[in-house]
């Protein structure tokens, strides 16, 4: 069963002549452990799709289901709990709280969810250690590099029992090596069963996903088919030996 499902989702802003259809009848489903990238130019509806999938915004039409439950059936408090417990967000500009250290930023959603401060800190430290940031845990965001800040925001997104990661241009401001590190981390979370949706305009980063969905003018216009396994792709590379060489 899909963990995230968008059924015929539309979203309009404004009325009359000023009406803009940001999303038009979008269907999208992501299995547990699935990694989907949504590509499209500016204004294609990528970010709107993500905020609707993350219950930060209501669709004008259609339905969003998370773990089989329609968001339209949840109360405001239930949605807030879902966002705290189940969904992790990664933003282009990191959105870390400047007055909190790296580990405090990571364990904040856990503490808000009632986990004891001591336990939350231990979980936060584990998450930072996994991302190679244990020695930066007590640094404030302005004492960290861009790549380190984004790693902290990913730790915050995957910590605890999160089962869905939604990332909006997560490596937009980073160089290609740090951008790749971010995608590796999201991929590694997917390998533990987390479902992920990343929106990006960058084909290089989208290529880390299992499936790439192309959005244009609020509609899904195309998507990639499942990529072949590395083994089948490696075969022709190592099998190009020239028979005339006699070796």
């Amino acid at each position: 069963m899909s963990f995230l499902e968008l059924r015929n989702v539309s979203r309009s802003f404004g009325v009359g002549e000023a009406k803009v259809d940001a999303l038009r009848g979008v269907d999208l489903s992501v299995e547990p452990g699935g990694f989907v990238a949504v590509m499209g130019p500016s204004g294609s509806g990528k970010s709107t799709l993500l905020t609707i999938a993350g219950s930060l915004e209501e669709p004008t039409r259609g339905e969003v289901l998370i773990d089989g439950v329609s968001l339209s059936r949840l109360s405001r408090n239930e949605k807030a709990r879902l966002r705290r417990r189940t969904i992790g967000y990664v933003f282009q500009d990191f959105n870390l709280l400047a007055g909190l250290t790296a580990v405090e930023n990571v364990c904040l959603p856990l503490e808000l969810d009632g986990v004891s401060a001591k336990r939350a800190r231990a979980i936060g430290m584990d998450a930072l250690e996994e991302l190679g940031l244990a020695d930066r845990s007590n640094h404030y965001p302005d004492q960290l590099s861009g790549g380190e800040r984004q790693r902290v925001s990913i730790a915050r997104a995957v910590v605890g029992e999160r089962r869905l990661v939604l990332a909006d241009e997560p490596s937009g401001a980073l160089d290609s090596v740090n951008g790749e590190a971010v995608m590796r981390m999201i991929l590694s979370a997917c390998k533990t069963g987390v479902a992920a949706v990343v929106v990006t305009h960058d084909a290089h980063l989208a290529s880390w996903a299992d499936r790439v969905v192309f959005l244009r003018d609020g509609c899904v216009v195309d998507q990639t088919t499942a990529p072949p396994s590395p083994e089948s792709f490696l075969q022709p590379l190592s099998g190009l030996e020239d028979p005339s060489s006699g070796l």
Partner: protein
Amino acid sequence: MSIRHAILALLSTGPKYGLQLKQEFEATTGDVWPLNVGQVYTTLQRLERDGLVESDDPGSDSAHNSFLVTPSGEAELSRWLNTPPDLAAPPRDELVIKVLCALKVPGVDVTTVIQVHRRYLVELMQQWTRLKEDEADFDLSFALVVDAELFRLDSVARWLDAAESRLRRSSMEPRNESGAPLLRRRLVRWR
């Protein structure tokens, strides 16, 4: 690709046999570009003729000879490494030509043509990225070759994005109905 200079580079670490050069070349390029051993011997003979390498037994069968780089060969290698390849003229790129042609064909939706190619490029990039997933499984040379291919495909995908955006903008601009000829600039000759 200059096999000639790649062989000089491999010989710069010490004398080697032809078969050894073939194997080292393939290892250096992450096994992505296989090399015919016959081509290695032909190239070695030409390098020897030009005084850039010398064999330990001149005049005998090159398959049994070990080769080393001469001072002239070292100078040639240094010149090659520090001289950028000629990228001044645009290559005759089939995809660019295809999009230009699609613009002229009645009833063809260029945006669809662009999307077909964009999807293909992204699928290819997914295949190369899969190879990078576990970098520990291969060496630095292979990682660099994979990066080079990914950046090459990415640049084509970016061009498609720019082309689509330019087409979209041009379709919204008023047409030139004055009859005045549009300014055209002749590009440098295609390679």
